[in-house]
């Protein structure tokens, strides 16, 4: 049961990264791929109907973590206290930037929100990448299963660590670049004209950089600790790596041949595969102790309750298909290229 819920939580988080990831990515690249108001409305029209629903995956994953592994949730997010509030404030600013921008036709008003949208998207991608880096590196858990981290110490990923060190910053940069590529691939698929042309170019360069960082981080992780050493014994780990490699091939193929959907599915597979492989290697550890493996909080010590989780499977079995149903409906209703809405008809 705990193994299953570990998988459910990881799958929901991966769904969150892939789905909200493309609208973060659209935010990261939009100042570059969309130069005037018409083009920026095109970008917003492409993500407008989806971003709010995508963000719900974060809340759903948080809820699943809450019920299945309350010790992980409470220790994890109270330990990263400041970082979590920075994330929350960026999510607030980003949400109102998207929703409030089009209420006024004034160019200064719109320019301000455009900048904020880009900045908040970029910071969030940086924070989420850094968070993943912290989980792989480990945190200084105490006997009672709590920790707190300073923002940074010596920037070394061993000894007395902070949230930021060169390894976690690397993971944060990877987050920005990879989500940027993902968002650019999404825009290549969903827009046309100049925006599409620039997005395709952006996706190509950003994705190349993302694959480079991915390789560097792979070897640095190998040097840092033994997380990756079990990769050979974990079939899901191999599957994840294969998915990521397949994604890389699909992006290359898709961007070269103008098969835009293939390229977008490729960046999605790249992100999802990387996350699956990471989770498979970490299992059963959910919050890794940096110095004492005995203090790590695992899926078995995460505070879950078997009987309660069996109950939760029932509502999950109803709720998840419903959520996927709305999602498919929403995509079908807004299929086709996004065109900049005329005033009064959308974002």
């Amino acid at each position, binding site marked *: 049961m705990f193994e299953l819920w570990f998988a459910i939580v990881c799958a929901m988080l991966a769904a969150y990264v892939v789905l909200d990831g493309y609208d973060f990515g659209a935010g990261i690249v939009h100042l570059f791929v969309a130069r005037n108001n018409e083009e920026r409305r095109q970008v917003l029209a492409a993500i*407008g109907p989806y971003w*709010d*629903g995508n*963000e*719900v995956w*974060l*809340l*759903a994953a*948080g*809820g699943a973590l*809450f*019920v*299945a592994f*309350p010790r992980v*949730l*409470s*220790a994890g*997010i*109270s*330990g990263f*206290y*400041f970082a*979590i*509030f920075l994330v*929350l*404030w960026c*999510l*607030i600013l980003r*949400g*109102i930037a998207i*929703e*409030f921008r089009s*209420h*006024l*036709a004034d160019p200064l008003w719109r320019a301000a929100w455009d900048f904020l949208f880009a900045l908040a998207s970029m910071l969030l991608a940086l924070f989420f990448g850094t968070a993943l880096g912290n989980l792989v590196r480990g945190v200084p858990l105490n006997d*009672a299963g*709590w920790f*707190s981290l300073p923002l940074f110490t010596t920037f070394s990923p061993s000894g007395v660590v902070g949230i930021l060190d060169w390894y976690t910053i690397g993971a944060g940069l990877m987050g920005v670049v990879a989500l940027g590529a993902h968002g650019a691939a999404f825009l290549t698929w969903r827009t046309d004209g100049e925006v599409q042309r620039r997005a395709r170019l952006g996706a190509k360069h950003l994705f190349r950089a993302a694959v480079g960082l991915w390789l560097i981080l792979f070897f640095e992780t190998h040097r840092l600790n033994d997380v990756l050493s079990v990769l050979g014994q974990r079939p899901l780990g191999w599957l994840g790596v294969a998915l990521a490699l397949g994604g890389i091939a699909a992006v290359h193929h898709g961007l070269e041949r103008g098969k835009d959907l293939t390229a977008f599915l490729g960046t999605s597979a790249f992100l999802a595969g990387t996350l699956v492989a990471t989770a498979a290697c970490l299992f059963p550890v959910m919050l890794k102790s940096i110095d004492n493996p005995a203090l790590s909080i695992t899926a078995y010590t995460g*505070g879950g*309750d078997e*009987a*309660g989780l069996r*109950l*939760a499977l029932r*509502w*999950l079995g109803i*709720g*998840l298909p*419903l*959520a996927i149903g*709305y*999602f498919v*409906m*929403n995509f079908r*209703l807004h299929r086709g290229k996004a065109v900049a809405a005329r*005033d*009064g*008809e*959308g*974002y």
Partner: protein
Amino acid sequence: MNEDALFWHRLQFAFTIVYHYLFPQLTMGLALLIVIMKGLSLRPGGDAWALAARFWIRVFGINFAVGVVTGIPMEFQFGTNWGSFTRYAGNVVGHTLAMEGLFAFFLESSFLSLLVWGEKRLSPRMHFLSAVALWAGSWLSGYFIVCTNAFMQHPVGHATAQDGTLRLVSFWEFLFNPWALAQYAHTMSAAVVTGSFVVAAAGAFYTLQRTHLDQAKRFLRVGTFAGLASSMIVAFPTGDIQAKLVAEYQPVTLAAMEGRFETGPMAGITLIGQPNVAARRLDNPIAVPGILSFLAYGAFHRTVKGLNEFPQEQWPTNLELLYYSFHVMAGLGTLFIGLMAGAALLSWRGWLHQVKPVLWALLLAFPFPYIANTAGWMTAELGRQPWLVYGLFRTAQGASPQVHSGTTLFTLIGFTGMYALLAVLFLFLIGREIAHGPEADHV
């Protein structure tokens, strides 16, 4: 964990939840009124109602956006600030919090853009159904939150595990907690009160301004009729059932809400008076005898226990604020029924648009349901003290042990600044919508 940090944790949660709930109480109430307006617009010749709905959907959209972004921090603060509570009760309350995301938020987010932007693309019937879906989503979301709170007020369906944390034993008992059903009916009807007062206030505003007169008449009609119905339901039966539950399961809270120290029959309800905790009495009270006994137990002669019957460590920790909150809520609720009864009668007779004093009263009344809703939640939450989960887990045990007071004060200040900015933007955009009015083309 020191006392100081606990205070800031509580203040931050209280501030962020009170601010957040200013928006959902309007959107939940307005969602129902929009469904009514969209329903009326489906009848032959209902175009004017479609126009009315369009105006309120724009107001709804702005409120909804602020509600969403201020709602996200709420779920996270259980973990950041109340980590020990999450550990203790996560296995139980995690169910409803996760179900809210799965069953309510996905539904709302999928239909929001259809409702706000889809009128030209969808058939009138489909657009009406989007309004219904959004109403259902927002009210479902309300249920999961109220159900979570009801568990904290009156825990049912649980057991304590060997490690001292809570386990869910009966899902259905937990999900259909009698406290949750009563509190939900009370809270939702109170949200409709807020929605109705806002719609009526807009109607009064345009009537007094002599603009958009046709729409103003519609706003006044919907606002006053829904306002009268919902204000009455808030008091009876929902408020009444709620009071009886408090009397049964939280008798010390009932005594504190009324500032009642002495035990005795024919317990009265105080109209004016200040609790004096040090002297254990109510200063200069003006009370109507017997009413509290009647409200709590259905008979005037029944004995109501006073605070003196209970050890002081079981008393709600902030007795004065609890007392004032309850009286503000109950007093305003009574005034709402009076105002709306008069206004609805005038509207029904077709005279309301000529009676300026009543129009002025409706215009200036719209902030008060917000105050009453807030005071009502303060009554519920202050009344729950000193417990986080009533009778099981004290508030002082709930905070994250390693988060210091200065850290929390810092994030509280951050929220204050962020929310001040949001308030300015919100008022600016809503002000523009009101100035444009229901007939202007949207920019």
